[in-house]
């Protein structure tokens, strides 16, 4: 029995040794990318770029206070994403590791092309790309965008990016767009995925209308080079439209992602709280799906001059406008498909119903109620 016990202990130790992976995955021998940028090249191929904490900067991996030397930037091209990543790996002094990527930035040109679906597929198959990384569609080149990423507040880009994204999500001006969700929703039998919309720098083409502002148009100046504001709408695996930051807030309300947001309506600043909803009912008996959505809000303002009814009408107007945009883009980011699918017994019946084709014509009615409460 003692011999058996000894053998058992030995085998257990061997399992720990073999399965821990410590012998083959030395942390020091990895290049952990913080950001991954993906572009379409002029030849129709794929360009990949990464930001990797530089070990040469003062001997500390992510120290350096955001100076240029704290992160090393590399880019490479290939016919496919896999090819580009292989080239990138070949050019780096250590093995490229994508398990810690905080954001995956895709150029708008690529996101709007048919090739984006293939890129998403390759991303899901690539060895351990971090599924909870945020997918960002940027105006201009993704490589330039990630080169401009730096920790404006704090020291580490990885932490700074995560905190920054969470901050914008809390404000409601960007959607939640994990890489896994974008891929899953692009292939699922339900609605469509969304991505964060961003731009490098602020352009002079400011429309002046806050409702329509998107990333790259925010009237701000500061150390931050990149702006994140709005939503990239997608039809399956291809970008087909953009929602502004304020429209994104409404989208987040409909998705139950935020509870508070602030607007300025007719010159009156107002804080709006979602008190209940959305309550969604779908009627699929006719040729056009009918979707009724109930939402209840509380309004809080210290100024006079804005009535409950006026705010209700304003919310309904903006909701209808935003919904029309999504329908025109052929995108259902609202998850209405998940409510509608409940009316069917099998996926085959649901697919045969043709939600994707019917959704752009759907009759979507918002029932908004607003109640004023004291601050």
């Amino acid at each position, binding site marked *: 029995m003692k011999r*058996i*016990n000894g*053998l*058992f202990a030995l*085998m*257990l130790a*061997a*399992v720990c040794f*073999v*399965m*821990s*992976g410590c*012998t*083959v*995955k030395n942390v020091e021998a990895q290049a952990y990318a913080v950001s991954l940028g993906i572009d379409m090249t002029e030849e129709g191929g794929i360009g990949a770029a990464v930001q990797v904490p530089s070990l040469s900067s003062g001997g500390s991996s992510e120290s350096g206070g955001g100076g240029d030397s704290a992160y090393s930037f590399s880019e490479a091209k290939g016919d496919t994403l896999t090819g580009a990543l292989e080239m990138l790996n070949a050019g780096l002094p250590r093995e490229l590791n994508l*398990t*810690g990527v905080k954001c995956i930035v895709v150029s708008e040109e690529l996101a709007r092309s048919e090739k984006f679906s293939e890129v998403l597929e390759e991303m*899901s*198959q690539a*060895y*351990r790309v*971090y*599924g*909870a990384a945020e997918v960002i569609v940027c105006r201009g080149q993704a490589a330039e965008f990630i080169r401009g990423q730096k920790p404006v507040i704090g020291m580490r880009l990885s932490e700074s990016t995560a905190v920054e994204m969470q901050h914008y999500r809390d404000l409601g001006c960007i959607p939640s767009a*994990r*890489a*896994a*969700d974008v891929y*899953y*929703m692009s*292939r*699922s*039998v*339900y609605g469509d995925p969304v991505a964060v919309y961003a731009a490098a720098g602020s352009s002079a083409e400011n429309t002046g209308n806050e409702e329509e502002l998107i990333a790259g148009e925010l009237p701000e100046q500061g150390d931050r080079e990149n702006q994140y504001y709005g939503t990239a709408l997608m039809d399956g695996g291809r970008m087909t439209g953009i929602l502004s930051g304020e429209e994104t807030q409404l989208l987040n309300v409909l998705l139950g992602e935020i509870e508070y947001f602030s607007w300025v309506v007719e010159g009156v600043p107002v804080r709006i709280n979602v008190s209940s909803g959305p309550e969604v009912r779908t009627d699929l008996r006719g040729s056009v799906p009918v979707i009724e959505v109930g939402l209840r809000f509380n309004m809080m303002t210290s100024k006079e001059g804005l009535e409950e009814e006026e705010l209700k009408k304003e919310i309904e107007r903006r909701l209808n406008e935003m919904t029309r945009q999504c329908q025109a883009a052929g995108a259902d980011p609202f*998850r209405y*498909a*998940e*409510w509608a*699918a*409940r009316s*069917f*017994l*099998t*996926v*085959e*019946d*649901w*697919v045969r119903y043709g939600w994707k084709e019917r959704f752009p014509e759907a009759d979507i009615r918002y029932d908004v109620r607003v109640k004023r409460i004291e601050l």
Partner: protein
Amino acid sequence: MKEGGTAQRRSVCTLTGMAIGFRAFLAVALDGGELYGSGWIVLTAGMVLSIPVAAALMIIRRLFPHEEAAGALSGAGGRIGVRLTGTALFLILVCDAGSVLQMMSTAARYVAAPESNRNIIKLVTALTAAAAAALGPCAAAGAAVLWRRLAAVLIVLLILVQAPYFRPGWLTPVLGPGIPVLMRGALPAAGIFSLTAAGWLMLEREHDPDGKAMLRTLMKSGAVTAALATVLAMLVPGMADAPTGRAFRLGRLLANDRAGLTLELPYVILLYSGMLTMLVFEVTAAARAIGMALPALNSRMGAMAAGGLAFCLSVSDLARQEKAALLSVWYYPVILSAFVLLACNAVIRKKMRKAGNAPERSGDR
């Protein structure tokens, strides 16, 4: 003595329940077709289909209350019956253990060691399982009791952390790919749940006088597994033409790709410990089964034979995902027909004895 017996019964039932539940869950999550949100139906149907096997075990136990498992089976089916049943169970268990070894090496390579040699991972794991099995069912069962407590804590933690990301809409349409596909998926699940018969071989007669222990284990295991499949389905949507490879499916299973990296550790602990429990159960039960078929083989030799054969099968084509899925379809008909035939035979013999048409004996030994 009674307390010790109850503890023994509970620990063997815990080992059996956890092993078959986890294995059925993996069969659906890794090797099954795209079930959308309907994995829970497949698991529930698998559990229901296996009830006749558990009922057959109960009948045999009640008809032969003074015999251990091997003696009761011998009484029910004679020497040839017990040898055939033991051999069939042994083959099914080692086949499945080979498939589990293949899964473990895929998981180890996916999580941490893509450059490691698959066969070395499989060999070391198979030897560990064989060594654990050589210690007897009580060793594996004791480990399972400890593991159950840790697993419960980890599962509750994972559910609480991920609750905000649940999407109940992904559970609809309720019947997912349709009844024919669900029933096809239920067959391998039923085969796994029918391995309660293997757990029964490890249970001593005085600890299960009414023969209901394995029926209860089956029901509990099926219910918990179906509930967990429901939770998983709310974290990953059904995809019409998603890749079906084990590595991709593992990605969906481990932190479902949507959760933060921090959650991957509890998922990995759950996966590995669950697979090890499963493997040790299968090798231990296989050692019992071969001991029944070949009484000359002692338990240590049986454990080494089971572990060795499982390793050999794991490096063969039979353990590959497609072949393993094809093979698993046959587990259920084989186990069901063997035990139902034994139970029927036992009932007929008993009736004949009562009618005075058969000699008074409880077996061919």
